[in-house]
């Protein structure tokens, strides 16, 4: 259905246009500028909530598309909010809105808050834009728009060796982005268009392996963003040393966009490549290596934020597994995983921020016995860790079950004989969820169980209400979607079944 009201464009323009206002008004409002950011991000939240519900109930068909004229060389500027992009755009907007509220108390003492909030908005627009744009050039521009504000946010408001770490983050992602750009330009060369939905039909037969090369270049850029082993090294530093609200956006919202885009671009524009089982086996191998590597690294961490960062790397392995599953169920699972990881990891990073705010530490060994003192935080943390480990009735369960079941189905039945290599890889992936449960619950035990440490015996409530409320809202959604995931799975499954993949 055509987006006659221009809802998608509004969802990008409103926050982007608010950004200079925040810069202007923020000097007087200081930390209260967070409320403006909250409002500006609630606007896209409502829009994508409406679109998602519209698709679920059927009154918006399969979603909204918008087409705008642009520079002729770059083809048309196309936007799409369908069953895959709108739930994800919804989550990104919701997280950005809630984390803006969280920032109000967390960032209170910092300087130059007006720039912080202005950049924050641009960063959020970059993420939403990446998800909804279906022109590869626009996609690339939004992709860079995510990078630059987040680089500045880390370099200025971060902790530790923030400038060096922000530089590392920038260089890694930029190297990936250049590979992505090369892939995008070669796509134009091979098909004459930048519009994702037209590439597949117009793709000219090139030399053998040429399409695979294009896809590999594009994926390389996206895998850096996803921090797939061995391209992950920027992530632990960036996530650990970014200001916590930004960590809570980087990990749950941003890195998963790599996985989102991988699915969107490869399956829509280059379906042939994804039917090559050697190619997908390679991706599965990378995915499983990443799961184990990230999980083991998380076990070895003493710093909570670093543990969460490595956990994100491991979770991106699951997302890549879903992306490489070549099945409707597996792709749906990847979409659900994006949401479940986003919800859980946002909770966990915000909890680490609560500790930094209340106790001025994020070392796990400095904490201990907090369950009695912080019952709400403890409950939310447990829910988040269990959701990561794929325990029902939490939404993470569905993500993992869909991804594993879908890829197992492809491995066993899509060819004449079962692809034994893939079966082993997928079995290993299932096994790696033990490590997820292990590092999660072990960290939980060290932080919340045992005798309360003397240094933590400070009076007062758990955390400021504005910091606790977003955590509780997200935990609640995690349980709700876990009990009844059909709203999401129906919308995504419907869309992916159009790709005519094996079930």
């Amino acid at each position, binding site marked *: 259905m055509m987006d006659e009201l221009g809802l998608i464009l509004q969802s990008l323009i409103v926050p982007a246009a608010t950004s200079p206002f925040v810069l202007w008004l923020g000097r007087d409002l200081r930390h209260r500028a967070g409320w403006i950011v909250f409002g500006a991000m609630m606007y896209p939240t409502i829009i994508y909530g409406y679109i998602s519900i519209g698709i679920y109930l059927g009154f918006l068909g399969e979603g909204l598309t918008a087409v705008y004229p642009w520079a002729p060389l770059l083809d048309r500027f196309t936007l799409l909010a369908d069953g895959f992009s709108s739930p994800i755009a919804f989550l990104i907007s919701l997280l950005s809105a809630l984390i803006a509220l969280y920032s109000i108390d967390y960032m209170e003492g910092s300087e130059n808050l007006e720039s912080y909030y202005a950049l924050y908005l641009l960063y959020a627009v970059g993420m939403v834009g990446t998800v909804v744009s279906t022109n590869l050039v626009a996609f690339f521009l939004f992709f860079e728009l995510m990078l630059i504000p987040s680089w500045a946010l880390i370099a200025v408001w971060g902790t530790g060796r923030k400038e060096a770490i922000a530089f590392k983050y920038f260089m890694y992602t930029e190297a990936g982005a250049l590979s992505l750009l090369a892939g995008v330009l070669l796509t134009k060369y091979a098909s004459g268009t930048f519009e994702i939905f037209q590439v597949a039909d117009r793709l000219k037969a090139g030399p053998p392996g040429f399409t695979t090369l294009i896809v590999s270049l594009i994926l390389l850029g996206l895998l850096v963003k996803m921090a797939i082993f061995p391209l992950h090294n920027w992530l632990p530093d960036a996530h650990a040393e970014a200001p916590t609200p930004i960590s809570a956006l980087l990990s749950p919202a941003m890195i998963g966009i790599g996985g989102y885009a991988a699915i969107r671009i490869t399956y829509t524009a280059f379906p042939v490549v994804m039917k090559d089982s050697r190619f997908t086996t390679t991706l599965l191998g990378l995915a499983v290596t990443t799961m184990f590597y990230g999980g083991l690294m998380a076990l*070895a961490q003493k710093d909570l934020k670093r543990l969460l960062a490595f956990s994100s790397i491991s979770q991106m392995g699951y997302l890549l597994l879903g992306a490489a599953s070549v099945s409707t169920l597996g792709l749906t699972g990847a979409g659900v995983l994006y949401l479940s990881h986003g919800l859980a990891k946002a909770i966990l990073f915000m909890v680490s921020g609560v500790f930094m705010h209340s106790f001025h530490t994020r070392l796990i060994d400095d904490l201990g*016995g907090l369950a009695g003192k912080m019952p709400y935080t403890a409950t939310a943390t447990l829910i988040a860790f269990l959701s990561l480990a794929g325990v029902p009735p939490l939404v993470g369960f569905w993500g993992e079950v869909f991804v594993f079941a*879908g890829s197992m189905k492809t491995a066993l039945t899509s060819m004449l004989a079962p692809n034994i290599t893939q079966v082993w890889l997928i079995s290993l992936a299932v096994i790696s969820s033990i490590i997820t449960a292990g590092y999660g619950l072990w960290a939980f035990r060290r932080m919340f169980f045992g005798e309360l440490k003397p240094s933590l015996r400070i009076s007062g409530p758990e955390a400021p209400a504005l910091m606790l409320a977003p955590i509780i809202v997200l935990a609640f959604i995690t349980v709700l979607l876990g009990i009844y995931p059909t709203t999401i799975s129906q919308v995504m499954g419907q869309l992916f079944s159009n790709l005519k993949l094996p079930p």
Partner: protein
Amino acid sequence: MAFSSEWVWPAWLCWIIPLIGAALTPLAARVNRRLRDYFAVAVSILTAFMTILLLPHLMRGELIHNQVDWVQVPGSTLISVKAGVIVDPLSVIMANVVSIVSMLIMVYSLAYMEKEEGLTRYWFFMNLFIGNMLLLVMSDNFIQLLFGWEGVGLCSYALIGFWYRDSKADWLKCWVGEGREAYPPSHCGLKAFIATRIGDVGMLIGVFIILAYAGTLSFTELQEGAVLKVPLWLLAPAAILMFGGPVGKSAQLPLMEWLPDAMAGPTTVSALIHAATMVKAGVYLVGRLFPMLYTAAWTAGSANQMITFFYTVAWIGVVTAFVSGTQAMASTEIKKVLAYSTVSQLGYMMLALGVAGSTAEFLLGYTGGIFHLMSHAMFKAALFLTAGALIHASHSRFLYHMGGLKRYMPLTFWCTVLTAFSLMGVPLLFSGFWSKDLILEAALTSGQLWMFILACLTVAVTAFYTVRMIGLAFYGPETERLKTLKEEGVHIHDPPPAMKLPYLALAAGTVLFGAAGFMFRDWLKAVFARFLGEVLGLGEAHATHGSMAAWIVTAFSVVMLIAGAAPAYLLYVKRRPTADQLLAIRPSLASLRAFLFNRWYINRFYYQALLEPFIASAGWLFRGVESKAIDGVNSFLSGSTQRLVGWFRRTHTGILNLNVVGMSLGFILMILILIRLALGG
């Protein structure tokens, strides 16, 4: 038939009520502490009432199935997962065992947990547990079963770690083990979660394989032939992988080590979750999958492969029964004796189901397994509850702190003895006798001589540790600890009615089922004959009851019972000689005792050979690969860039003459290029 098709709502309500009840507990706690306690107990009573309403179905022995839409993924393998309940003899029996035992234990908790902090959390997780357990039991498909399965695991984790402060001062109450293997509650909860998770992973892989071919996870559809779409060479491995779930949950070898340590939770939790109900979930699941796997084995012509599966189940069961039983012989903690015993008895049930599938004569084993599940739930719950009373009285979980309690707690003593007789399988009057003999008979008639021998040896072992436990707790001289307690003015006596009545009821139940055991056994066999015959499509199954075998088995089990009980009676009840005197004469026995006390060193092996190296390898990878190798590449890149730039910077000398020369060379180069272009164009 209007009755059968409409009478399913209790099957839904029985798990919905406790789940909602759990969610409301924090609200009730806002009003008043007493209200919260009574509210939670009332919920469990209502739940029990719901399952009792299902009993008429048991008489009919039918399968009723009721579904609603739940999860849809259009165009995929899981195009529509329906939530549903299945009402058949297996689920009705299991649901009633769960809900009635839970109700009694909830009543017991009123008094037992009275002085504890954090009771809102306690009641919440107890009702959440009951709800999830019944959800598991009533489920008609794997996905929904997994909800219950993981849900009970979560409650188990939370309740084992109920005393999350791991207080060293309270270690007599809330830790488990002593010496090198003493663990605090939060450690034990984590251990339980991870150990069962290892089994679950196997189960999930098996489920995904079956789903890939069969395209459904509904038990009834799988039974009706979908399971045969799985290639036969893959079905047996998938089934064995799926058995990983029961191995973890029901604490069988090699994953059994979590259950003894789960005793760090409150006694009520041990009684409910780690004896009577949750650990039976594995047995229940095998019973649930049994018909479809049996069909695959015997009617689809894959007997050879599938029998491997059934033998695996039986061997794991019987070896676990023996190994764990011997561990109970040397344990110093009353709850740990009972925990080892639980593992051992669960092994019996697995043995029964395994041998049932390995022969065409499945009825004896299947009935035996389920019957033993029922009687074990009753007597083991009662034993735990009496153990709770003993721990309450002596303020310690160690048997060597008790002793001579018979005089102060006569009622508790008699309940313990009656239920312990059931555990040992003392003939005729006790339900444990009938069910255990059925299992032994199944093992014998299936022709598995070694399994039968090992199972018989376990009877002797069981008798030994049971008598030992009673002797240590109730007989002998009063211990120093009890004397000190009395000097401090503690009045040692039988517990209040809220604690007494539940175990009295359970003891009465076990005797009642025992007295009527002969009839009950045959009736149960008839129910399963009709039901399984119908499900398997074999017509009514007949139990060829070899009376010869039955007599042999009874004779054997009585002999083994006496062989085990007599030495324990002399050593621990009569104490002529005492165990210490015996060890002085026979030092070789001391090393045997150490071997058994240290759990055959299995637990230590897991920690030292598997867990600790694994965690160490994570640290090694972090330092070696992440910090050295990858960060090394990073600093090499940045370092060499800096060196390159530094080298290039030396050309920027600032000497004017050199600059002019460079500039002129540049100009000339550009002009040459332009000329070349102009000519070429």
